[in-house]
C-alpha cells in the first residue's frame, strides 16, 4: 500500500525538556504522537506514529509506555518531519518506510506520568477502596481477589450505565454488544464477558492499584469510582448475611442445568419456548432476588430474555461474589 505525505496539526506539547521532546498531533481525526530524535539531515527532526484510539487510551491510563506506541502498537504508520517547517500550527509528515532504528526509539518505561506538561481531558480516578488484609496470603490469592472483585464491580457498573438513559449511546452499546457476543459456554466465555464489560468504563472508573502493602496485616488501595465501590461492597457483604439460603438456591439451579446438560449448551442453542425455560427463569429470578440483583429487568433485556443465558449470567455473577466473600468469611479480608 502506498503511504502518502500527510498534514498534521500540533495539538499539544507533552514533554518539554529544554526543547520539545514529545508532541501530540492530529491528522484529521487520527491521533499522532511524535518524538524528537537526532538526525543530522534535519534541524528539529521528529519521528511520528499514528495511534489507534484504544492504544491512545491505554497510554493515557498508564497501561502501556511510550515505547509500546512506537514499537508494538501495530498497525501504525510511521512518518518523519522537521519541526522547523511548522506553519500555522501544522507540519507536513513524510512516510518513513524503514524499520525504526533503536536510536529513534524511547527506552522502556517512560510513561504518561513522566510528561512535563499536563494533558487536559483525562479524569483520573480519585476514589479509593481499601482492602484490609490479614492472615496468610499466597500471591495467587491476591490475583484471585482482585480479579473477582473487579468482575463484580464491572458487572454492576455496566448494568447501571445500561439503565441510565442519559449515559452516552456508545457506552450503552458496548454493554449491549458484550451480552450478545458471548455463547456462555465454557470458562473463557465468562472471562471474556467480564473483561469486555470494562470497556464501558470511563477513565475515572477504571480500577487501578494506588498502593500495596503486601504484608499480614497489610492493605491494598485501589482507585476507581466511589459509587461503584459502594455497590460492589454492598453486594458482597449482603451475600454474607444470607449466604446459606443463597448457596442452596444456587445449587438447586446449577444442579438442574447440569443434570439436563444445559451447562454445556450454547445459550443460542437453547429452546426458549419450552417448560424448562419457564422453570429456569423462575429459579434464576429467586437467586437474583436473594443476591439483591435489582437490575433483573436489564439483565433479561440484555440477554434477549433467553432463560439459559440469563441463568448462566446470574450463576457466574454469584460465583464471583461468593469467591470474594470467601476471603471475608475466612477472616482474611475487610473492605474499608
Amino acid at each position, binding site marked *: 500500500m502506498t503511504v502518502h505525505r500527510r498534514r498534521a496539526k*500540533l495539538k499539544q*506539547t507533552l*514533554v*518539554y*525538556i*529544554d*526543547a*520539545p*521532546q*514529545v508532541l501530540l498531533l492530529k491528522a484529521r481525526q487520527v491521533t499522532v504522537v511524535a*518524538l*524528537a*530524535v*537526532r538526525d543530522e539531515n534535519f*534541524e*528539529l527532526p521528529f*519521528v511520528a506514529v499514528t495511534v489507534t484510539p484504544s492504544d491512545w487510551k491505554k497510554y493515557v491510563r498508564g497501561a502501556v509506555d*511510550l515505547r509500546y506506541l512506537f514499537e508494538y502498537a501495530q498497525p501504525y504508520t510511521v512518518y518523519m518531519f522537521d*519541526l*522547523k517547517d*511548522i506553519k500555522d*500550527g501544522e507540519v507536513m509528515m513524510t512516510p518513513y518506510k524503514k524499520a525504526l532504528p533503536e*536510536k*529513534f*526509539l*524511547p*527506552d*522502556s*518505561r*517512560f510513561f504518561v*506520568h*513522566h*510528561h*512535563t506538561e499536563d494533558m487536559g481531558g483525562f479524569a483520573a480516578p480519585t476514589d479509593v477502596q481499601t482492602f484490609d488484609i490479614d492472615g496468610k496470603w499466597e500471591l495467587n490469592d491476591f490475583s484471585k481477589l482482585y480479579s473477582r472483585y473487579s468482575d463484580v464491580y464491572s458487572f454492576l457498573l455496566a448494568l447501571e450505565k445500561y439503565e441510565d438513559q442519559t449515559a452516552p449511546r456508545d457506552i450503552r452499546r458496548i454493554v449491549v454488544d458484550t451480552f450478545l457476543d458471548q455463547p456462555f459456554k465454557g470458562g473463557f466465555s465468562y472471562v471474556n464477558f467480564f473483561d469486555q464489560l470494562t470497556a464501558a468504563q470511563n477513565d475515572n472508573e477504571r480500577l487501578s492499584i494506588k498502593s500495596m502493602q503486601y504484608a499480614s496485616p497489610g492493605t491494598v488501595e485501589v482507585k476507581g469510582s466511589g459509587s461503584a465501590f459502594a455497590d460492589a461492597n454492598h453486594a458482597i457483604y449482603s451475600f454474607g448475611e444470607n449466604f446459606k439460603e443463597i448457596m442452596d438456591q444456587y445449587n438447586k439451579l446449577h444442579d438442574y442445568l447440569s443434570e439436563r446438560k444445559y451447562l454445556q449448551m450454547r445459550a443460542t442453542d437453547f429452546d426458549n419456548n419450552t417448560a424448562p425455560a419457564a422453570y429456569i427463569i423462575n429459579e434464576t429470578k429467586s437467586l437474583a432476588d436473594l443476591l439483591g440483583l435489582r437490575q433483573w429487568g436489564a439483565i433479561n433485556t440484555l440477554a434477549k430474555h433467553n432463560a439459559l443465558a440469563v441463568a448462566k449470567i446470574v450463576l457466574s455473577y454469584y460465583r464471583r461474589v461468593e469467591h470474594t466473600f470467601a476471603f471475608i468469611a475466612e477472616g482474611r479480608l475487610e473492605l474499608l
Partner: protein
Amino acid sequence: MSFREPLPPLCPPTDAKQQAYPAAYRLLETNPPPTNSFDSYNKLNKPPYDADPCIRAACSLFRSKKEALTAIKLPGLKGHSFIAELDIPAGAGVSKCNDKNGHIRMWMYDTFDPISAIKKVEELSA
C-alpha cells in the same frame, strides 16, 4: 531583579517561586560544560514553534538524579553523556517543580552563574 535573558510578557508565571535546591540535576552533552549549556531554547535561537514562549525561555533541571535519568530514555536527549549536580540558592531565580516527575523549570536571574553552582559532574555509562 532582571533575568539572564529577555523574557516574553507574563513570564515567569505567577506561581513560579524563589526556591533553593541544595541538589538539582542537569543533563549535559559535554564536560566541561560550555558557557551556553544552561541557555534556553529561545536563547539558543532555535526555530520558534507553537509552544508557550515562556516555556521556551526556561532551563530544565531535575529534583533527583533518578528523575533526570528517566528523561534520557527519550531519543532526543540520548546524546547527554554527563549529569551535573548543582547547589542552587533561593536567590538564583524563580522556578516551578513538577511533583509527579521532578522536572524543574527555572528562569534564572542574571546574577546567578549556573556553571559555578555545579558541585560535581558524573559521566553516564554508555
